């Protein structure tokens, strides 16, 4: 056996992963090669060091208590439909930072699709794309879309109708509309309400009111069988706006290097 071949097997030899024949072959080489013996020792030393350093780590006691408590509430968790979010609990208020219509669709289509599958009332409040465009985008992935629209399990509304019914943004009106939609979900036998609203229509002059609204939502949302996904067009936001979005949502996702990442995951309050 040459050194090059021995190197290939040293690691498995050290870890006891070789069959007897190969062990004999490696040991034969080691007897005659000080360099490979040295290499084997290096591998052993590093392996031992890693074990010595990290094997004593234990989970904090409160984590065990928290996991057991969350298992009790497992029925409150829903499939988000969004890979980077995975399961989310009723009462989750999340945000998506996006730049293109494609970005928007990549998140909202599976999000809405999963809600429809799970018997939730799904509401999409659009901005920048028309209700018809939103419907066409969903129809590409959801074959029986019209059925959901016909029975009003899926509702697509414009931002003007949802946020600006009186021509200007009124925080209490927006909260009342959300509450009314939630009651509609429950009274029609849906398991809860799944909403997405695009907040990018807001000009800087209204930003403070929008954040006040987002904060008020946070004070009540955890008591409801509601999932909220707010969409913010990142290129329209200032750095301060982004910080505000981070501080007012349980999860914030955005696209980095062509894949969706969790930008923030923290309990609010």
């Amino acid at each position, binding site marked *: 056996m040459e050194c090059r071949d021995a*190197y*290939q097997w*040293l*690691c*498995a030899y050290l*870890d006891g*992963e070789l069959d007897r024949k190969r062990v004999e072959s490696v040991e034969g080489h080691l007897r005659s090669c000080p*360099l490979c013996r*040295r290499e084997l*020792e*290096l*591998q052993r*030393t*590093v*392996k*031992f*060091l*890693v*074990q010595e*350093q*990290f*094997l004593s*780590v*234990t*989970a*904090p006691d409160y*984590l*065990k208590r*928290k*996991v*057991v408590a*969350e*298992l*009790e509430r*497992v029925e409150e*968790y829903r499939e988000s439909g969004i*890979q*980077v*979010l*995975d*399961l989310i609990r009723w009462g989750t208020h999340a945000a998506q930072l996006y730049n293109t219509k494609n970005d928007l669709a990549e998140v909202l289509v599976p999000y809405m699709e999963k809600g429809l599958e799970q018997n939730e009332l799904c509401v999409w409040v659009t901005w920048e794309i028309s209700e018809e465009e939103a419907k066409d985008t969903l129809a590409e992935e959801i074959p029986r879309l019209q059925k959901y629209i016909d029975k009003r399990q899926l509702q697509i509304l414009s931002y003007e109708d949802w946020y600006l019914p009186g021509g200007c943004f009124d925080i209490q009106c927006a909260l009342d509309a959300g509450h009314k939609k939630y009651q509609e979900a429950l009274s029609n036998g849906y398991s809860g309400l799944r909403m997405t609203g695009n907040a990018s229509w807001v000009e800087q002059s209204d930003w403070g009111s929008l954040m006040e609204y987002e904060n008020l939502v946070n004070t009540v949302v955890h008591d409801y069988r509601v999932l909220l996904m707010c969409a913010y067009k990142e290129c329209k936001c200032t750095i301060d706006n982004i910080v505000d979005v981070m501080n007012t949502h349980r999860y914030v996702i955005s696209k980095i*290097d*062509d*894949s969706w*990442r*969790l930008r923030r*995951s*923290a309990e609010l309050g």
Partner: protein
Amino acid sequence: MRQVQSVEQRKKEFEEVALEHMDSLYNAALRMTRNESEAQDLVQDAYLRSYRFFDKFEKGTNFKAWLFRILKNIYINKYRKESKRPQTVDVSDVEASGDLMSTATPEDEIFDKLLDDDITSAMDALPEEFRLTIILSDLEGFSYKETAEILDCPIGTVMSRLYRGRRLLRNSLYEYAKKRGYVKD
């Protein structure tokens, strides 16, 4: 009533087999995310996901490996910060025998003097594919076959990543030792 009992039994059975692995899961999650708060969230997510799919677990197979596969998948989809593109490592640098081979002092003596923080930093700086393989094989004691199944890669890749990963770690530890003056030129 029967339904309630069955849910309770299922939960009890899950807790009995799953909670004993929490230290291992947390330890691995901590080395994956390199962040205590995210590691805790990751462990919780893995428990919720595995409980949800507990019916899908094939009894008689390796439950710990099943849990770790779920943990790894959630880490990749949700918590990892690195690019999804495979990281490239300068193999010539990994394969080179380096300064260490020519030192008179055995490396275990040199590394013994290193601070715990140095070892943690060296481990955390390892490219993800090497770090995950070392976590599963060296820390959790999974066989090459189990590690390959958890990571969705061939056994030969596990072997190669372990070998190269340990060498990268050693090179990095050696640099820390040099900086601290434990290696004489």
